[in-house]
């Protein structure tokens, strides 16, 4: 009986967590879709987005702008975090990956470079920002009394904002990819890079734009996670990155809708696991999902079968 009472609540948490996982997973899946490479530094881009958001929030609070409505503060945190994260992603591509894939390196080369970039960024943040955690003053922004009751669950304003922001960004990305010329050129490069170039697409620019978009979404995820968990540190990108990577694989890596779906499922599965099991097993459940996906459906839920040798 007890479990059934907290179930709606857990589902709401799962939904909020899931949309954020999906947001971060998009960065993995977009880069994979276009370069067939796992950007293992994406978790660090997410972490740095959280730091930029923290920095903006702290600056606003120090300037005694606490009276500001969160409707304004959240976008003011998101925009610089996304810009910074996006540009960082572009720099990574330019300096850590492009020199390798242009020289026709195997797919292992950029992967190792990504792991190196990940370690570098973690340590750079630790050295410049300190190893101790930073605290998001979320409660000053979203008073705990801002809640609504939905089907037996008490939903805080912050959770609604998370779901809203992440949902809006996914919808925006979907429109961009499906309806615009830029989106068509991204899909064309992902499908057949040489033919896209023959159509006149500037392939390098499209790759850079893809890194920008994926990284900016990761940075936004960082701000949302910071607001939600209220504590951030230089190592937070590791586990969040692995979770989002799991979501991307679950949905079918390279597939944008798959990343969103995978994120949602993973968020819900995790919060349900916490409901029915010891919360200590939360991460075990997430990685069990990764392993089960890889064993039974390596292409993921919406992924396509890839011809052997062609893209491996």
């Amino acid at each position, binding site marked *: 009986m007890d479990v059934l009472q907290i179930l709606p609540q857990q589902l709401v948490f799962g939904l909020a967590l899931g949309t954020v996982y999906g947001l971060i997973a998009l960065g993995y899946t977009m880069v994979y879709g276009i370069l067939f490479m796992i950007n293992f530094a994406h978790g660090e881009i997410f972490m740095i987005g959280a730091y930029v958001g923290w920095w903006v929030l702290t600056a606003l609070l120090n300037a005694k702008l606490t009276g500001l409505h969160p409707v304004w503060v959240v976008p003011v945190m998101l925009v610089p975090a996304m810009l910074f994260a996006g540009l960082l992603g572009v720099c990574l591509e330019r300096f850590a990956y492009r020199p390798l894939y242009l020289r026709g390196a195997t797919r292992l080369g950029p992967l190792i470079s990504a792991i190196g970039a990940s370690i570098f960024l973690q340590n750079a943040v630790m050295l410049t920002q300190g190893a101790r955690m930073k605290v998001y003053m979320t409660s000053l922004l979203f008073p705990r009394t801002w809640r609504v009751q939905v089907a037996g669950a008490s939903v805080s304003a912050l959770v609604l904002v998370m779901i809203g922001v992440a949902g809006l960004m996914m919808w925006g990305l979907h429109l961009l990819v499906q309806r615009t*010329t830029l989106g*068509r*050129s991204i*899909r*064309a490069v992902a*499908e*057949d890079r*040489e*033919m*896209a*170039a*023959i*159509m*006149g*697409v*500037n392939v390098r620019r499209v790759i850079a734009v893809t890194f920008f978009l994926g990284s900016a979404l990761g940075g936004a995820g960082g701000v949302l996670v910071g607001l939600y968990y209220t504590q951030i540190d230089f190592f937070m990108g590791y586990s969040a990155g692995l979770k989002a990577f799991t979501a991307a694989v679950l949905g079918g890596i390279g597939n944008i809708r798959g990343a969103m779906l995978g994120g949602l499922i993973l968020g819900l599965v995790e919060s349900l696991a916490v409901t029915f099991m010891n919360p200590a097993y939360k991460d075990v459940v997430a990685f069990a999902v990764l392993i089960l996906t890889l064993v039974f459906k390596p292409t993921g839920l919406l992924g396509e079968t890839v011809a052997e040798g062609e893209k491996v």
Partner: protein
Amino acid sequence: MLKLTDVVTHYGPIRVLKSVTLEVRVGEIVCLLGGNASGKSTTMKTILGVVRPTAGRIEFESQRIDRLPSESIVRRGIALVPEARRIFGRMTVWENLSMGAFTRQAAPPAELAQDFERVYALFPRLEERRQQLGGTLSGGEQQMLAIGRALMARPRLLLMDEPSMGLAPALVDQVFDIIQTINRQGTTVLVVEQNAAVALGIASRGYVLQNGRIVLHDTAAALLAADHIRRAYLGED
């Protein structure tokens, strides 16, 4: 219009094109014949800047293009119908065609609409299926889509790499009829073929490529009449 002079192309250490010299004049249909691995597709890719020549020069409308990136070459008015079609299978027919017009985003919408009309008039099937994914089309329809996509760039020179490959004989005739129509509408065509009889049937001149070298060139009629060409490419004894 297009002039290749002693073009040499390497894939890594392997010299694929050893010396290719050929010329396409405005308004012509020129045919490049050759067997497997003679360097036909590499010639196409070299013209488009997908692979870089290691020596020689390529001129288009009297300007050197062999150092330019592919996108600038396409912008100058060369489009390709590639070997094995290579349409974007996960994009709709309409999206494939608009990718063909990628270099013409500044063009007035009315002009683009007119080009869609032109392609749909040539290939009514494409209009019926414009919302369908390219990957779900039949082989012949995909070839039409590949041709339509190239036309959307409003090329002055159209390169066609083995348009007859994998098509039923009736469709081959249809495709070559369309090539003639396109040519009459004012587009110069360089077509690479193994099917020499059909290609020489519509071409004004032909070149023969063997092991990365142009070994022969003549008018289409003379090539069709030449004994050794008949033996090598028309399968006659």
